[in-house]
């Protein structure tokens, strides 16, 4: 039995999630046992877990059922089981917005937050603040003030963080707690101090003067908490940025002084703040870069990572400053942490000399398959930057990129590569052919429609002007027969461009279809209005293709002295995005099921099949169907108006909705209704 279960589990690939097949209704049914006395904490705990699980899975709870479950849960407050009580707090927070009357637990939570059990106090505060609105906040204000200055750190922190959440909702009430927050800010506990600073800042952040005063105060008095220091650094650099104060400001001095803090986190924060400042002089940058350099050789991977990531970011802006770290970065190339190694190499690519490019690229290709897409994108971006800097390196790069293109990878990564290749092609004409060849290879097996169409477009643009345009046609043609509509459409457009460019293009090696289509386009092109037609191929298609086909067909069957008139072709009735489906019918013989000509084309065809209508000429326009009967009647009749140059055709579609009766011998007797008399 157990074995069987295991197997089933494996098959569904679920691992061992005991909650996988939970039914909301069953769980809510179970929740009724909350009403039983005595309480069974273990069972209740399990059911609460299920409810929270369902809520977090996004299961929708109706107000009534949620309220019922919530009130049942409130009864669990009679149990003194600690785990169960804390689970109740969690449930309250989760259900605060879906159940009605959640304020019912206000007194119970207030009692817990002021009670003797310290494990209850913090979580009770957090839950209480979730169910409290501005009007109710007044009632608990006294307790909040007391909790903020409570000597138990978890209580004080909970109160401070909850206050911070409530600033958004009840700024005016929370503002009155500033004195308590000030007191908490001098706490010995690093978290309490940090949270107090956070609250103080958020209460004042719209008042620049108050923020400045606060910064002055704390930068002078000093803080115990490294977290608080980091926050001060962020506040200070934001203020510097906003006020556009010069770097002779005391705020800058403060940040710089933090470079000498005992705590690495603070030092890093300060360095990062400085290197990200706009308009830093080399002299100002130097101390910050040198601490980052120091971190590069730290035994702690997190520090090395932080340092190299920051250096990587600033390498473009301040290459010379980062060059100072080249030696340390070189050491990181072989770092066992691939993320660090990647960042080191790409930083060096940005700052290093042209001569080192080959070596670095070789190094990175040795492990590029082991790093995540996110870092691969970093590599591609570095290559892209490098190609702009050292255009002569494009062949090395192109080779590297083509290898990357063949690897597995997600859309963002592939797009980065394709964009990079395209930009290289655009900037270096001599790289065009290799680049296009790589891209051709890529679209042979490309799952990203966006990229395939983009490349086909590029091929249509660049291919015809290459010395050997025929090389690309095979690749494009493969797309026509194998891909989804969007890609096929792009492929056909690309082909048309080849046709438009080279009248004498040899299609002999292609099969009938492409030849037909090519001929079709050639045909279009050979008509007298060459300029117009070419424009129409290059600039996208504004006419209905089946319509055009039909008109041309008519024209060839019935030769006349008059030149073919493009204006007689009905305009495409579908928006541009759907043109792809209109272009497709050209490949009629192979893909009939995927064709979707416009509505009007269908009508035209249907009407042409009726002998009486043959002399009417091209269909000018068909109306939307108009329902003439109610939807539920026995016979549904709708009418479509077809307008020709000199005629009007009314099409009545009659549908019999009864399956036991036959509809026969219908006549339509249209009457011209008199102009209604005025009442």
């Amino acid at each position, binding site marked *: 039995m157990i074995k069987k279960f295991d197997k089933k589990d494996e098959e569904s690939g679920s691992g061992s999630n005991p909650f996988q097949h939970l039914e909301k209704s069953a769980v809510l049914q179970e929740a009724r046992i909350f*009403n*039983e*006395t*005595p309480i069974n904490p273990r069972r209740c705990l399990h059911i609460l877990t299920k409810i929270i699980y369902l809520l977090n899975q996004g299961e929708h709870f109706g107000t009534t059922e949620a309220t019922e479950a919530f*009130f049942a849960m*409130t*009864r669990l*407050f*009679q149990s003194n089981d600690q785990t169960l009580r804390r689970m109740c707090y969690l449930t309250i927070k989760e259900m605060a917005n879906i159940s009605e*009357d959640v*304020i*019912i*637990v*206000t*007194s*119970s939570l*207030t*009692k817990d937050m002021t009670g003797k059990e310290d494990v209850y106090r913090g979580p009770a505060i957090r839950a209480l603040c979730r169910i409290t609105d501005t009007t*109710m906040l007044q*009632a608990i204000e006294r307790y909040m003030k007391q909790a903020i200055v409570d000597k138990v750190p978890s209580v004080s922190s909970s109160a401070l963080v909850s206050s911070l959440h409530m600033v958004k909702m009840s700024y005016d009430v929370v503002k009155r707690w500033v004195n308590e927050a000030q007191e908490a800010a001098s706490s010995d506990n690093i978290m309490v101090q940090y949270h107090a600073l956070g609250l103080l800042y958020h209460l004042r952040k719209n008042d620049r003067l108050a923020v400045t005063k606060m910064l002055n105060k704390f930068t002078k008095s000093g803080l115990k908490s490294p977290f608080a220091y980091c926050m001060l650094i962020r506040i200070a650099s934001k203020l510097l940025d906003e006020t556009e104060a010069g770097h002779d400001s005391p705020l800058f001095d403060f940040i710089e002084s933090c470079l000498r803090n005992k705590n690495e986190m603070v030092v890093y924060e300060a360095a990062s703040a400085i290197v990200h400042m706009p308009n830093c002089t080399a002299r100002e940058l130097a101390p910050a870069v040198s601490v980052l350099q120091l971190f590069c050789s730290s035994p702690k991977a997190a520090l090395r990572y932080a340092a190299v990531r920051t250096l990587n970011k600033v390498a473009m802006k301040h290459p010379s400053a980062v060059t100072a770290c080249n030696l340390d970065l070189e050491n990181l190339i072989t770092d066992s942490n691939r993320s660090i190694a990647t960042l080191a190499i790409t930083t060096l690519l940005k700052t290093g000399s042209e001569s080192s490019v080959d070596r670095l690229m070789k190094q990175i290709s040795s492990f590029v398959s082991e790093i995540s897409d996110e870092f691969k994108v970093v590599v591609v971006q570095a290559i892209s930057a490098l190609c702009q800097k050292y255009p002569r390196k494009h062949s090395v790069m192109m080779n590297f990129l083509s290898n990357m293109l063949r690897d597995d990878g997600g859309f963002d990564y592939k797009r980065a590569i394709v964009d990079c290749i395209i930009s290289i092609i655009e900037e270096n004409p001599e790289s065009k052919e290799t680049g296009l060849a790589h891209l051709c290879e890529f679209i042979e097996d490309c799952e990203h429609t966006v990229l395939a169409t983009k490349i086909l477009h590029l091929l249509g643009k660049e291919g015809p002007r290459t010395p050997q345009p025929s090389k690309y046609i095979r690749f494009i043609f493969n797309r026509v027969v194998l891909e989804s509509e969007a890609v096929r459409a792009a492929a056909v457009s690309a082909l048309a461009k080849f046709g438009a460019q080279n009248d004498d293009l040899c299609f002999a090696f292609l099969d009938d279809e492409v030849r037909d289509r090519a001929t079709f386009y050639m045909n279009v092109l050979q008509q007298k209005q060459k300029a117009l037609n070419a424009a129409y191929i290059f600039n996208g298609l504004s006419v209905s293709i089946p319509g055009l086909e039909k008109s041309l067909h008519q024209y060839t069957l019935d030769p006349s002295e008059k030149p073919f008139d493009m204006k007689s072709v009905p305009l495409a009735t579908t928006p541009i995005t759907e043109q792809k489906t209109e272009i497709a019918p050209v490949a009629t013989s192979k893909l009939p099921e995927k064709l979707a000509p416009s509505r009007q084309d269908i009508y035209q065809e249907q009407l042409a099949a009726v002998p009486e209508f043959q002399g009417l000429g091209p269909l000018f326009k068909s109306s939307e169907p108009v329902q003439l009967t109610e939807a539920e009647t026995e016979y549904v009749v709708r009418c479509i108006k077809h307008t020709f140059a000199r005629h009007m055709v009314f099409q009545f579609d009659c549908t019999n909705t009864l399956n036991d009766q036959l509809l026969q011998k219908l006549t339509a007797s249209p009457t011209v209704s008199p102009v209604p008399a005025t009442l």
Partner: protein
Amino acid sequence: MGLLDKLSGWLGLRKKEVNVLCLGLDNSGKTTIINQLKPSNTQEQEIVPTIGFNIEKFKSSSLLFTVFDMSGQNRYRNLWEHYYKESHAIIFVVDSSDKLRMVVAKEELDTLLNHEDIRCKKLPMLFFANKMDLQDSMSSIRVSQMLCLENIKDKPWHICDSNAIKGEGLQEGLDWLQGEVFNNKTVTLGYKGREGQVKLCSECQFTHAY
């Protein structure tokens, strides 16, 4: 749990748990009363208006009471009914010095008695005519008249004068409640002996008979 408790548990003497709902208008003294009934080391020093409810537990000689002390403020009174179903007894507290709102108290009481979860149940109801110490307070007889308690025919009920601040009158009421609950239990469990009930009922009659 002490050894004695365990022993009494084995002997079937473990204290029965009863859920009691404490209702009444705001400021009538519900929380103060419940606080007085708790063991002195767990009593609150300061009583504030209740928002929602509080759960308190205390023991009498033979029962373990779990009291849901509800909020009496107007906007929270509609939340009482969520707790009707699972309660075994009701304590209804009246501020006997609040003549003005006696009609409001009566109205709430009538709504309660007519509620579908209460109507057909033989719940014992204990009334406290609280704040007896105040000069202008009414007697329990007067209070029971104003609330028309004599119309309650299908439930055992009892009214006591009380001073929640000093704790006077509370024990008397609790003793009555304990007896009733026991009775109710024996009845529902199908016991034959009715002596206690008869006695208590006559006592009820006696208390009502003013």
